[in-house]
Each structure stands twice: as structure tokens, then as C-alpha cells.
């Protein structure tokens, strides 16, 4: 045993090496700019716009693909006329109604699922059945039940929000660590206070994902529904705006409408959800 290793003398370092220079040094301006996600993504956007412009100019057919600059001009023009903004606000208003109603229902379903076994079975069964159903497929039926008005839109919006939010919230609740659950119960929390003060914050990463997916589903459902059935009210939303402009063969403005669909999506994603994320799960170290 002992002969297998060679004995060597101990080594002590009397004075530690100090000639290593700086321990830390600030990044160069270029390194800092390249670290900014906004900058990198902005650069990609500029490249896409440039490719679009080049291709559309070579194609030379504004009815198929207007140039980027023509689209941008149409976008500014319809913004300035106030029409595009009014249509967008109308759509967002309907969207918020449907989204809020969907969230209320999702809260009730998930609270039931978190507290009772029947509730959990119900939620799992319903969401397995209804989640894959495209919301737009329910619209004809909704029109019969609720008429040619906002009611029908709110109905299909609820459908598109509800399952995404409920499913994600439920899976978030179920992955809350058992130590955390037991801590909550230890301090006497039961029922709704337990859900509100322990489960919801602990499952917030999943809940936020659900809210994001639900929002995206709702937004595309609404635009698509308006495109198909948007004639219902005189005002009409953004989808109807796009449909109208297509009928008038005002293709650059159709693109401007699509621009707006994207712009609203970006604003909600980066401003609303991005800020919520930074103020909650990033700050709490639940996501990096």
C-alpha cells in the first residue's frame, strides 16, 4: 500500500503572487453594444427590410409585393388619417374583453383543479378535448348563439385564451416544490389564501407563459375572425381593415395593416410581458 505512492516534501507559499495586473476591466464600447439584444435584433430587422426592398424593386409588381418604402409610406399615411389607429384600438378593446373573461374562467377552473380531484379531472379532460380546437371553427356557431356582434368575438376569444392559460397554470401548480407547499400549510394557509399566496407566485413562470400564449392565440384569433366575419359592426377592427383594403386593391395598405398586427404583438410582448417578467420571475431568480 505505502510503497505505491512516493513521499514528497510539503510546499508552503510565503508570499502570494501579485503581478497578475487587473482583476476586472470594463468591456469595450463595441462589446457592450454587441451584448445588447435590442441592438442585435434591430440589426436583423434592418437586414430583412433591405432584402425586402431589393426583391420588391426587382419584382416591380406592387399588387403582389409592394416595396418596403411603399408599405412604410402607406403605414404612415393611414396612421396620420387616424383610421388605422381607430381600427386597432377597436380590436384591442374587443381583445381585452375576451382576454379578461378568459382569465376569470381560467382562474376558476384552475382553483378547482388545485383543490379537488374532480376539478383536476374536469380541467384535464376539457382542455384535452377543447384545446386543439381552432377558435375560428367555433365562430359560425357563436354567430348563431350570440349574433353578429362583439358577443361572438368575445366567445371565441375566451376559447382561445382559456385553455392555454388553464393548462399552463395547472402544470405550474403541480410542479410547485413540496417543501414550499408544506411551508404554506405550516403557517396555517388553506384554500384560496393558499392558492393566492403560495401556488400562484410559486407557479408564476408557468402562469406567465400561459398568459403569453393565451394572448398570442387571442390576437391571431381575433384578427382572423374579423377578416372573415368582421362586417358585423360598422366600425370593424384591424382584421376588417385589412380585408377592406384588399377589396380596394390597396395592397401597400394591406401590408401596413399587417405591420400593425406585428407592431401590436411586439409592443405587448416586449413592453407588457417583458416588464412583468423583469419585475417578477427574473427578480426572484426563477428565470434567467
Amino acid at each position: 500500500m505505502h510503497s505505491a505512492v512516493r513521499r514528497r516534501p510539503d510546499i508552503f507559499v510565503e508570499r502570494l503572487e501579485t503581478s497578475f495586473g487587473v482583476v476586472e476591466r470594463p468591456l469595450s464600447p463595441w462589446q457592450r453594444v454587441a451584448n445588447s439584444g435590442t441592438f442585435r435584433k434591430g440589426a436583423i430587422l434592418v437586414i430583412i427590410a433591405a432584402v425586402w426592398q431589393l426583391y420588391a424593386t426587382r419584382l416591380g409588381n406592387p399588387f403582389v409585393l409592394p416595396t418596403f418604402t411603399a408599405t412604410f409610406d402607406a403605414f404612415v399615411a393611414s396612421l396620420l388619417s387616424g383610421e388605422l389607429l381607430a381600427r386597432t384600438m377597436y380590436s384591442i378593446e374587443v381583445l381585452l374583453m375576451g382576454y379578461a373573461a378568459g382569465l376569470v374562467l381560467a382562474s376558476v377552473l384552475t382553483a378547482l383543479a388545485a383543490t379537488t380531484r374532480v376539478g383536476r379531472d374536469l380541467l384535464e379532460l376539457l382542455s384535452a378535448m377543447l384545446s386543439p380546437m381552432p377558435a375560428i371553427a367555433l365562430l359560425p356557431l357563436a354567430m348563431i348563439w350570440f349574433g353578429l356582434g362583439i358577443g361572438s368575438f368575445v366567445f371565441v376569444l375566451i376559447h382561445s385564451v382559456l385553455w392555454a392559460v388553464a393548462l399552463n397554470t395547472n402544470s405550474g401548480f403541480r410542479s410547485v416544490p413540496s417543501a414550499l407547499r408544506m411551508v404554506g400549510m405550516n403557517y396555517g394557509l388553506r384554500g384560496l389564501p393558499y392558492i393566492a399566496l403560495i401556488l400562484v407566485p410559486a407557479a408564476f413562470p408557468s402562469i406567465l407563459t400561459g398568459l403569453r400564449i393565451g394572448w398570442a392565440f387571442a390576437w391571431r384569433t381575433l384578427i382572423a375572425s374579423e377578416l372573415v366575419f368582421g362586417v358585423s359592426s360598422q366600425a370593424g377592427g384591424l382584421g376588417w381593415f385589412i380585408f377592406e383594403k384588399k377589396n380596394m386593391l390597396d395592397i401597400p395598405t394591406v401590408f401596413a395593416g399587417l405591420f400593425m398586427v406585428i407592431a401590436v404583438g411586439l409592443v405587448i410582448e416586449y413592453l407588457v410581458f417583458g416588464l412583468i417578467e423583469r419585475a417578477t420571475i427574473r427578480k426572484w431568480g426563477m428565470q434567467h
Partner: protein
Amino acid sequence: MLADATPTAPEAAAAPSVVLDVAGVTLQYRTTDKIVTATYRVSFSVETADRFVLLGPSGCGKSTLLKAVGGYIEPVEGAINLRGKPIRHPGPDRVMVFQEFDQLLPWKTVRQNVEFALVRSGKCTRTEASDRAMHYIVKVGLAGFEHAYPHTLSGGMKQRVALARGLAVEPDILLMDEPFAALDALTRRKMQEELLQLWDDRHFTVLFVTHSIPEAVLVGNRILLLSPHPGRVRAELDCDGGDDPQPETGKRLSERIHDMLFSTEEARHA
């Protein structure tokens, strides 16, 4: 108070010092395909200011026993009484400290974690909670970290917060489920000593679960040895915190415990 001073039976004089009484408790839990008996007819009593250790190898049901005392599991047989009252639900008169680092609420700062426990358990109002939380955070050596979120803390610091939270509530009994098992050896040693220092200061009652013989000998003043599959009481030993060879046998306490826990198994495997 005067009424209490008038003639009392001898057992009544001894009884008030018993905080927790576990009598003939059998615990079972259900997995997806079977029912497992975790402990079988386990009895012991924890008295005021005890550092009572449940010690045994994995599978002896010590954690399950602690959860039953916590009120999370109902015994199928036997009774668990806290100050003479049966335990039915989890409650802030018995605070658990877990092994897992994720027992802290990640969305609250160190101080808010302690305040949350104080307010929710109804121990004090929001304004009182703030001072009391700070007092215990300083006690566990985390002054300056009160506004830190748990994810920025080391494992040892997180366990200190959990300990501060448990102590601040001032429960009848503190239930510690292998609280230092996930720590590195140096931090564990330090935390064990700090726990003893805190105990010297407040003389709180604690029920401590561990599978480490040295930890049991160091932390406990009374050690309950449990044998595995299912957990049954093998011995209940007094311990003065030292581990010197004992005059009558010439053996250290930790050696005796080791022999008792492993003698039957070695005989079986031989």
C-alpha cells in the same frame, strides 16, 4: 396561578414539561401500487428544551414521523399529542425546517420571508413582525442580507433564513428534517455549532431528524434510534454532547449507536 399551587398529583407536576407525546404510532403511506408501512408502534416523549434526535438509516421512517408530528400525515394507529392536544392539521405551533433549499419563498426577500411566517401564523401584526424578523435575522448572522432574495444566497445562508423563520414564530416545537444534510461538510459543522449556540440562548424545544451518527451525538441531548423497514424503536439514549469513551464499556456513544444500528444487519448479511 394560586389555584395551581394547591395540591397537585405528582404526575401533574411532571406532565407540563412534556411538549410532545408520541404513543404507539404506526404510519403508512400509499404509492401508486402499494401501501408502505413507514413506522410501526413508535413511542417517545419530547420534554421542554429537549434537543430530541430521531436517528436511523434511510427507510426507517424518521422523516415520515416528523411529517406526522407536523400534521401532514395522519397515523393509522396511535396518538400524537402536542401539549396534551391531538395533532390534526399543520399549524404554526410546530414549525418545520426542511433539508431542501427551496423551502424559502423565492418571491420574497429574507426579511419578507420571516415576516410572512409571523403575520400568516397570526403571531404578530405587520409592524411588530418587521422588528421581530430583523431580530432573528441578526441572531442567525444574516444582518446586511435582509433585503436579499433567496436565489442570491448560498445554501448555508438559505438554511439560516429557514432557521430564523422557524425560531421567529416561536413554536412549541421546532421540527428539523435533516436541515444540514444538503450542505458541504464545513458549512454543516458550522451550522451545527450555531444551532447549539442559539439553543444556549433561547432553550427552544427541537425535534431533529438525521441519518448521521456524529450529527446526532453532537446536536442531541436525547437520541431515539430507529431500525428500518418499518421504523421501530431500537433504543432511546441520553447524550451530553460529548463523545468520549464511557468508563463502563470503554466505548464511545457513537460506536455504541453504530453497533446497535448495524449489528442485526451485519448478522443477516453474514
